[in-house]
């Protein structure tokens, strides 16, 4: 494979130090603003509920400041030139999510606060340990194995747990977690590392079908493997959301690596076939589809969640009934899958739009990082990680609003869930590392491999 010159090498190198300082100042300003918003929402939710300010507002403020400052100082120390927007947006989403979890269930709020602490610790640890994303590329096959192993872990007889119909939990003593949340990062690293070395072979059109030039059909193997793994997840773990997520992750990374739309077309055809076959074969898939098409067929049973979510969103109207004033315990799983319906009830269309905009800006920043990384492993990894967050948010919000059949994945950073929170913080730390490196990187022929 030939090395190509990154475009940045021909232009004069920007002043790295000045960029870093400016970005960190921006980040601090935005973090202060997002902390104020979270604090305000917390106070308002308590005012709505009990007509009094929360008793623990000062400790709450203290915890926010400690967590936010820890993350900010870590970025300042170990990824000074990285993107300034990711951390504030994540802090806002996580904080808003916490406010609504605390408003629904005090006990879960305590756990979520603990998990946020663990998440920030994992975030800092990732920044400290991963000093160079290219090191991850070196271990791509290890990460691939780890990813598949984590996916299969819940199927083990002793550790695996069946919770709410999906076998995606693993319990070690008192601690249980969803290994799939970590598998997605490992797989993103594997896909990026694998495809960055294969992209030339995969991208060359050498085979003619009628009027179309397509890549050699032998090269479609990886697509089929990714498809097969996704199907296995659907069949054995009954986790439709994650299966869809893995498949989309692979497809997007492949598309960006090769620039060939034929893979996307092939992917959607395969997806259609897989979806149809699993619909005819598996009852849990059929249930999801029939609830999606007509939840009112069984309003008190299987359709209950979706109908109540629709009521909650409708009740919220444009600006919501107000934090703390919605109906509690209306929807089962309101603190995980349906948190966006709660936000919709209490902050209305404007509130849910704000959540959407936050994810949009998060995805935009991620893609900007990918664009800046200069056609390397970093680009593909940034695209993969960004699409993980963006698609996961899309899948669950589309499920709640009945755009797609409901599949139970968490809303990144917002929903209650330790594994999801910690893994997403690791994901953001990796994105920041890629962004930091693309600013700092001296022209290096190996970087373009």
């Amino acid at each position, binding site marked *: 494979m030939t090395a*190509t010159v990154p475009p940045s*090498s021909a232009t004069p190198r920007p002043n790295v130090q000045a960029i870093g300082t400016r970005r960190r100042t921006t980040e601090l300003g*935005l973090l202060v603003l997002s902390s104020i918003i979270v604090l305000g929402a917390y106070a308002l939710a308590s005012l709505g509920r009990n007509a009094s300010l929360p008793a623990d507002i000062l400790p709450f403020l203290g915890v926010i400041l400690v967590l936010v400052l820890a993350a900010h100082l870590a970025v300042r120390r170990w990824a000074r030139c990285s993107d300034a*927007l990711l951390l504030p*947006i994540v802090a806002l989403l996580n904080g808003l999510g916490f406010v609504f979890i605390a408003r629904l269930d005090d006990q879960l709020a305590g756990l979520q606060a603990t998990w946020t602490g663990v998440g920030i610790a994992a975030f800092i640890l990732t920044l400290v340990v991963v000093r160079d994303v290219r090191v991850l590329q070196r271990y791509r096959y290890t990460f691939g194995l780890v990813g598949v192993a984590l996916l299969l872990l819940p199927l083990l007889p002793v550790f695996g747990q069946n919770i709410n119909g999906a076998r995606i939990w693993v319990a070690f003593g008192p601690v249980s977690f969803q290994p799939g949340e970590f598998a997605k990062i490992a797989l993103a690293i594997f896909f990026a590392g694998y495809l960055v070395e294969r992209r030339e072979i995969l*991208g060359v059109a050498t085979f003619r079908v009628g009027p179309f030039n397509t890549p050699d059909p032998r090269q479609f193997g990886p697509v089929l493997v990714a498809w097969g793994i996704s199907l296995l997840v659907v069949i054995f773990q009954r986790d439709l959301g994650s299966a869809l997520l893995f498949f989309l992750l692979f497809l997007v990374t492949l598309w960006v690596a*090769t620039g060939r739309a034929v893979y996307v077309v092939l992917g959607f055809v395969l997806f259609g076939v897989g979806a149809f076959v699993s619909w005819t074969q598996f009852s849990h898939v059929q249930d999801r589809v029939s609830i999606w098409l007509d939840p009112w067929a069984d309003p008190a049973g299987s359709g209950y969640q979706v109908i109540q979510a629709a009521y909650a969103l409708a009740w919220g109207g444009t600006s919501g009934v107000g934090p703390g004033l919605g109906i509690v315990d209306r929807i089962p799983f309101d603190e995980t899958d349906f948190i966006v319906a709660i936000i919709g009830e209490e902050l209305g269309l404007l509130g849910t739009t704000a959540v959407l905009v936050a994810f949009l800006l998060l995805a935009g920043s991620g893609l900007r990082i990918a*664009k800046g990384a200069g056609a390397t492993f970093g680009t593909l990894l940034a695209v993969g990680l960004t699409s993980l967050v963006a698609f996961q948010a899309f899948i669950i919000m589309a499920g709640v609003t009945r755009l797609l059949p409901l599949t139970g994945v968490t809303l990144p950073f917002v929903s209650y869930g330790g594994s999801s929170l910690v893994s997403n913080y690791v994901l953001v730390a990796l994105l920041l590392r890629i962004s930091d490196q693309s600013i700092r990187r001296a*022209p290096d*022929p190996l970087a373009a491999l």
Partner: protein
Amino acid sequence: MPEQLLTVLKLCLLALLYLFFLRVLRAVWAEVGPLRAATGQVPRSAGAPAAAEPPAAGRRGRSARAGRSRSSRRQPSVPTRLVTVEPASRAGAEAALGPELTIGRAAGCSMVFDERFVSQVHCRVFVRDGAVFVEDLGSTNGTWVNGARVVGQMPARLGDRIQVGNVVLEVR
């Protein structure tokens, strides 16, 4: 707590949320906007997916076209020389086009660039029947004309930009 007050507070919260997004967008603009104004370059976000494209093809192609229209106005229409554009430290260095002009790192080349992305004997540029041709001589990083990779012998016209590793030359 009066209901109106709660409503007002709620609307303030929503306003703050959108103020946050406005600030985020402003931060993005601060990085994207002035950069464009200062360097006069098309922002990096334009163009197709980066990974699939030869490096900076879109940008170079565009600036090369601009360069051609500019140079054709004040120059005779027959290309006579190769002028270094990038890197900035070597800008202006030029050589006359002739039947054979080699570019590379080796001392024997007609134009010597001791740059890390330039191969020992990187490529040759020659004139045949009044037309300029570029041929890559098996270099590691390839030769590009206006962002298109040189395969075999490729013609170059007045104002075209030839990229040799990280060195950019303009045909004038």
